[in-house]
Each structure stands twice: as C-alpha cells, then as structure tokens.
C-alpha cells in the first residue's frame, strides 16, 4: 500500500460527503477522516518496517513533472498531524448547525486532501499545486460559514486570500526559475543544484515571501487575526492547526535545502524578525478584546518561535520546530475549540462578556486550564519539549536570541493567564453554562491526552523525524 491511499481516501471522502446529503454529511466526513487516519497509521507502520510507501509516476513530460509523493519521517509526521487533527476538528463541529453541511464538510475534507498532498509532494510543481489548492476551500469556509458582518468578513477573507496567493505566486516564479536550471522539479535534483549566490538570494527571498505570509511572520501577519476571528471555528482550527504548519514545513523541506547559502547569509535577519514577532505577538495579544483574536496573536507569537528554530539551520532547531509545530497544532486547535464551546453557550467572543464560568463547569475549566498551560509550554506538556529544543537551538546561535525568544515564556504566561482569569474566573456568571457535551469532551480529552503523553514520552516522534531532519541538515551544510 502506498501513500496515495491517504490522499484518495480524503478526496473520495470529500466527494462522498458532498453526495451523501446534508443529513449524513458530518458522519460521512468523520468516517472518512478516521479512515484516512487509519491509512496513515498503516503507512507509519510500513515506514517503521522500512518499507518505502512513496509513489511516483510521470505526470507530464513537457514540462517534466512527476506525480511523486515522498514518505519520510518528516512528511509522515506532518501527515499524521493532519489526519489526527481532522477527525477531532470534524468531531468538534458536531455541535454546530451549519447551513449546507454537505458543502461544508466536503470542503473541509478537500482541504485536508490538499494539505496532506502539500506535505507529501516531492515534486515542486505538484507541491505548489497542492499548496494553492488548499487555499480555495478555506476561502469558502471562512467566507460562507464565518462570523460577524458579511461585509467585514468578505474584506478580511479576500485580503487573506490575495495576500497568501500573492506570496505563493512568487514561489511559483522561483519554481519556474529553478525548473529552467534543473530541467525538472524533483526535490533531490533541486537539492543538488548549484546556484550562484545571487540566484540563491532571490530564490530564497521568493520562497520567503510565500512562507512568511503563510506562517505568518511579522510584518506579514495582518491577515491573520481578522481571518481567525471571522472564520468559523473549524476554519480557524484548520488554518492555525495545520495550514500555517504548511508554511513552516515548507521552509524546512524546500526553502532551506534549495537555497542553503542564502539561508546562512540571511538567517540572523530572519531569526531576528521571527523573534520580534514572538515579542510583538505576545504584546499585542495582551490587550485583545476578542478571544479568538487573542488566540490568533498567541499563535503569531508561537509560530514566530518555530520559524526562528527553523532558521537556525541546526538539527536541534529543525527538530524542535517540527515538534513544536505538532504540539502547537494540537494546542491551538484545543484552545479555539474552547473558545467555540464558550461561544456555543454565551454567543460571544468578547472576553469582557465572559467570566465566572469555572464555577459552573469545573470540568471544562480544568481542560481549558490544561490547554492554557500547554500553550505556555509548561514542562510535562508536549509544547515544552518543542519550545525547549527550539530555544536551545536559538541559544547555540546566540544567547540574545534565546533570551529574547524566551520572553515568550513570560509574556505567554502573562496574556494567557490574564485571558483565563477574565474568561473563566471571577464571580459566577449570571448566564448558565451547560456542561460540555460528550463529543466536546472527547475532542478536548483527546487533545489533552496527546499533549500530555507526548510531553512525557516524545521519543517516538523524535525518532520518527530525526533521520529526515539530519538528511536535510546534511544537504544544507554540504
């Protein structure tokens, strides 16, 4: 069995969901997302046994494009992140009553399809197609099922779309250029290219634009908060949990090994930018009135740190970044879900309208608390493993990076606890807060369980990703 099965399952799932009608859509989507998870676990098993589950076939001869999917530890980790989160995300939406659920869930699965493809593709062209493809469903998800005033939402969503699209177009230009040099888009061929310093510089920059917007790094982040706020929570989860990991993953997979010398030259600038993002995101998060916006800025801060880790060009940095990507994927999905749970009961996202919830739902409060703690990287949670590794790698570059980047553990605690205090604590809220439902509980517990288990025992993930990261590092330092 090769890895196309995951893609096929998700694609068929999207179609089946669409045709299954509104009543069944969510269940069918859940079924297929679980099936995709099962398939990816099979692939994982095969990978551990040393069986190559990759796939390659000629797609086009002129230009020379292969439909090739590469399965290595890194890609597999990201695929698993997606397929693990998908059932949770879908399950989390069971409490919502969407109009046209068949369209909604079909788009969600289609997005998963595109994202998994992005992680797997080892042909630049194929990769780009999947990359772009993932934009369409999220555009519609955010536009059609989003919150608040339609006009504002439209503005935010189209800005997001054009912005990210613009960035990726530059990446396309870079790919075309590389194709002229290499005669194909194959990853390993592109790795082996000998580019002049100037060429590398521009190609690096083109890639950087695409990824900086997607990740996002400051000052390219302006789309983020509003879209996170306006999108339906499922969309926000997809965006923050998986989609922005696409950018980070691509940095590791594509940008750094293809333009290693430019990366080395510019790494300090970019690390500086990323760390500035960490601090800036944290500070802006402090004074947010909207819960989802606050979480968006927290996300900005966290991914800044991850990006900084990527650009250290060290094994530790990359590994920490990947670990943190996975951890952040889970925790941010959990946090947005918590926001959604509150919204379902109070119909507000404004922090000042909340408060005093803990008294009514101790269970939910505890789960929320754990997520908050994971988000601030308390040791024992998976996030700590990633954050520690990243900060250590930053330290090996420059102690100032570690200290400045490390402010996230102070500022993170600052805004997260402040948020928690105003959302959950205080005098009992006058409005009743119904206890979490079974599906809500399952999702939260699954996320928390994942974070805690791998917080103490990250070894399987570390062992999964390390060989491929070392390979990439060896390409970078050739």
């Amino acid at each position: 069995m090769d890895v196309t099965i995951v893609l096929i399952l998700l694609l068929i799932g999207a179609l089946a969901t669409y045709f299954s009608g509104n009543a069944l859509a969510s269940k069918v989507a859940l079924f297929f997302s679980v099936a995709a998870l099962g398939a990816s676990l099979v692939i994982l098993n095969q990978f551990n046994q040393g069986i190559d589950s990759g796939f390659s076939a000629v797609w086009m001869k002129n230009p020379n494009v292969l439909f090739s999917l590469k399965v290595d530890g890194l890609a597999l980790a990201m695929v698993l992140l997606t397929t693990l989160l998908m059932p949770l995300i879908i399950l989390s939406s069971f409490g919502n009553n969407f109009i046209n659920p068949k369209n909604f869930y079909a788009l969600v699965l289609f997005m998963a399809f595109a994202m998994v493809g992005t992680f797997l593709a080892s042909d630049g062209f194929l990769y780009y197609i999947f990359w772009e493809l993932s934009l369409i469903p999220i555009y519609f998800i955010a536009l059609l099922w989003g919150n608040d005033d339609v006009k504002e939402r439209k503005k935010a969503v189209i800005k997001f779309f054009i912005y990210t699209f613009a960035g990726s177009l530059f990446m396309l230009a870079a790919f075309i250029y590389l194709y002229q040099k290499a005669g194909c888009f194959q990853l390993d061929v592109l790795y082996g290219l000998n580019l002049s310093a100037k060429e590398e510089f521009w190609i690096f920059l083109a890639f950087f634009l695409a990824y900086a917007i997607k990740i996002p790094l400051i000052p390219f982040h302006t789309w983020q908060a509003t879209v996170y706020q306006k999108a339906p929570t499922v969309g926000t989860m997809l965006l923050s949990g998986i989609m922005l990991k696409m950018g980070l993953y691509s940095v590791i997979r594509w940008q750094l090994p293809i333009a290693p010398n430019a990366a080395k030259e510019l790494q300090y600038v970019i690390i500086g930018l990323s760390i500035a993002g960490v601090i800036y995101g944290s500070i802006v998060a402090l004074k947010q009135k909207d819960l989802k916006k606050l979480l968006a800025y927290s996300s900005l801060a966290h991914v800044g740190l991850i990006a900084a880790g990527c650009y250290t060009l060290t094994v530790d940095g990359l590994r920490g970044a990947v670990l943190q990507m996975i951890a952040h994927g889970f925790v941010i999905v959990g946090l947005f879900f918590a926001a959604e749970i509150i919204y379902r009961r109070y119909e507000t996202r404004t922090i000042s309208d909340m408060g005093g919830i803990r008294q009514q739902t101790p269970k939910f409060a505890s789960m929320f608390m754990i997520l908050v703690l994971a988000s601030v990287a308390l040791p024992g949670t998976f996030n700590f493993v990633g954050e520690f590794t990243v900060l250590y790698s930053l330290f090996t570059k420059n102690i100032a990076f570690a200290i400045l980047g490390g402010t996230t553990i102070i500022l993170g605690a600052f805004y997260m606890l402040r948020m928690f205090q105003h959302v959950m604590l205080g005098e009992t809220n006058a409005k009743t807060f119904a206890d979490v439902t079974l599906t809500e509980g399952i999702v939260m517990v699954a996320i928390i369980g994942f974070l805690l288990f791998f917080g103490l025992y990250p070894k399987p993930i570390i062992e999964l990703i390390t060989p491929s990261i070392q390979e990439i590092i060896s390409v970078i330092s050739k």
Partner: protein
Amino acid sequence: MNTLIAIAVLGVICLLAEIFNLRKAIVPVMIVGLLAILGMTMTDFGVTESHYNNMIVVNNFTVTFSSLFIVLTIFLVTLSHNFYQEQATKISDFISIKLFLLAGAVSMVSFGNLAMFFLGIEVLSIALYILAGSDRLNMKSNEAGMKYFLMGSFASGIILFGIALIYGAVGSFDMEMIYQASNSATTVDWFYIGVSMITVGMLFKIATVPFHFWAPDVYEGAPALTTATMSTLAKVTAMATFFKLNMAMNGNMKFEYELVIVIVSIASMTVGNIMALRQNNIKRMLAFSGISHAGFMVMALLNLENATGSLFYYTVAYGLAGIAAFTVILYACKGKDNEDIENFNGLGKRSPLMAMILTASLLSMAGIPIFSGFFAKFFILNSTLQAGWLILVIAGVINSMIAVYYYFRVISAMYTKEATEEAQKVPFEFYIVAVVAMGLNIAIGLFPSVLMDLF
C-alpha cells in the same frame, strides 16, 4: 482543407434549412455536422500537406487549432437555441454567421498565403460586426457594432497596408517565400515596416494595450452570446494567427521587436487587470480580463520554437473557461437589460450548480490549480522564462494577484449576497455546455500532457 469546405457547406445548409422550414432541426443538425467535421479534422492529425498552390496548408498546428475552434463553435451553437428564443425566426442567420465566422477562423490558422490570411480575418471580422450589431433595436448593440466596425476596418486597413509592404518587399504572398525573405539579410526595410503594421493590426484584434479600447465597449454592448464568441473564439483565433504569422515572418526576431512584445504584454496585463477591478458589468469585466489574458498569451511570441504547446494549452483553457463563464452569464442575465454583477447575487442559492461552474471558470481564469488556467499560466510563464524574460514572469505573477480580486468579487457576490429573485430553471443546453466545458477544463488540468504532447 476539407474542414474549411465542410464548414462553409454546413453554413449554407443552415441557411437552406430555414428556407425549407426546418428551423427546429437547425441546431441539432449543426451540432451533429460540426461534430462530424471535428472528427474529420482530427483525422488529419499528423498529416502535413498543402492545397491550392499552397494557399491552404494542413499541419498539426492547423489541425489542433481548428479542432479547438470547432469545439468552441459547437458550444456556441448549442447555446444559440436558448439565447435566440425571442428571435427564433432569425436563428438560421445567426447560426450560419457563426459557421462562416468559424470558416474564417479556420482559414486564419490554415493559411499558406497572405491572401488567405486576409480573407480569413475579414470573414471573421465582418461576421463579428454583424453579430455585434445584431440586436438592432438596442442602442448599446448599435453602438458596439459601430465601434467595432470602425476600429476593426481601420485595423484591417493597417493590416492590408502591411501586407502590401511585405508584398512589395518579397514579391509574393506565399508564406514560404516570406519566411525565406525574413531570414535573408538583403531584405528591404519595408518588409519590417510591413511586419510591424501587421503586428499592430493583430494586436488590435486580440485586444492588447494600447489597441484595446474597443474591447470593453464592444463586449458590453454586444449581445451576450456575441460577447462570448468574441472573447473566446475570436480572441483565440487571432492569437493563434498572430503566433503563426510571427513564426513565418519573424524567423529571427529582433530584440527590439521582442521588447515591443514585452512592453505590450506587461501593459496589457496591468491595464487589463487594473481596469477590471472596478467594473460593475460582468461582460465588461471579462473584457478587461480578456485584455490581461491577451497580455499573457502574447508572451508565447517570445519563444516561438517551444511555445506552441503552451499557447495552445492556454487558448484551450481560456476558451473553455470563457464558454463556461458565459453560459452562466447567459443564464443569470436572461431577461435582464444589463449584465451587472448584482444579477449574480445569491446565485449560489438559486442555482448551486451554475454558481459552482462560474466559480470554477473564474478560478480557472485567475490561474488557480487544479483548473487548467493555472497550468496554462504556468506553461506560458515557463516558456517565457526559457526565453530569458524574467521580468515578464514577475509582471505576470504580480498581475495574477490583482486578477484574483475581481474574480473573487463575483464569486463572493454569488455566495454571500442575498438573492433578489426566484430561481429559474436551468435550460438543458446550458447545463450540458457548462458541465462539459468545465469538465474538459478540469480534465486538461489533470492531464495536461494530452494537449502538451501534441506538439
């Protein structure tokens, strides 16, 4: 060769059918006939021959493009039935004009002699003048027809002048001779003046900046089906012809000439996209979008040896997307006196399929995978970069972003705005045309090699 004759005959049959009171049969018969012609044309694939003293040549280039034109015409004819319901008595005229237009188009790509080229372009143009002004009682249509006619015949004059100069320099209208002359060092300057005048004329026909002003006005004023014809068939034909002319006349294209093309391309893309931003009439918007697409297509001229496939792919993708888009426009604006974007409000609820088709075709035009428009842009940019024009690639990339905005304006209007009226039933032909066109569009997106490997 047979293609051309068969098409002309079919046109005559169409006229005769009206005489013999077979009005109802016209559309089906024409479709069947066109399909037969399509099959016949495609059997010529791989054959290289010439007819009538090299007046007409048949080779893969002509066969592929002719097939594309025929396919587009099939779609257009299919749409005619419903579109001309109000003027049922004239349907044979309209359809036969479309067929003659097709004949002109086919001769434009199969010419072996400038005379044939000139005839083809005039047949096509005159047919379009008629179609543009065909809604006699509508002021807009009159104005569109007039504008198109005046500027078109002016451009014809320019082209003719160019032809005359080339003839003066070469002493023959035969493309072989012209090709040789273009490669010889002794050729007089007139020749190049002639070439540049033909170039300008063709740039007018495909509507590139600064020869584009007619397009938005005419597109807006002409009846919607005519606009569809102009923006798909006519534009694609002109582009293919232009490409072929350049292959023959610019064997060794000079840098200055390339620079002109580059400037025109950048200007067209930019002006087209920027102007499209604030349009309220969707036909007008598509006219500007067509201008920017023309800017993309002319890039093919910079890499004459290798870009044939890319250009063909682009024209197919653009043509199919255009057909699909116009089908929805015809549906949504039926019975309206304008084609404003407001007409599309709530289309997503009124007719989800049509909305989806329009979305897909606009996404294709915007160049978003997996629709073929993306591949088209990619291939053409790729061949452009192969020719070393990085600046065009960057310009193309920047323009693609601008383009997204106005395409998505329509899309979001369809899905987010409230519908102002009741849903109408989708006519069966529209349904078929839209689905088939979009299906083909996506299919060639999934399997681009099908087309790319033809050349």
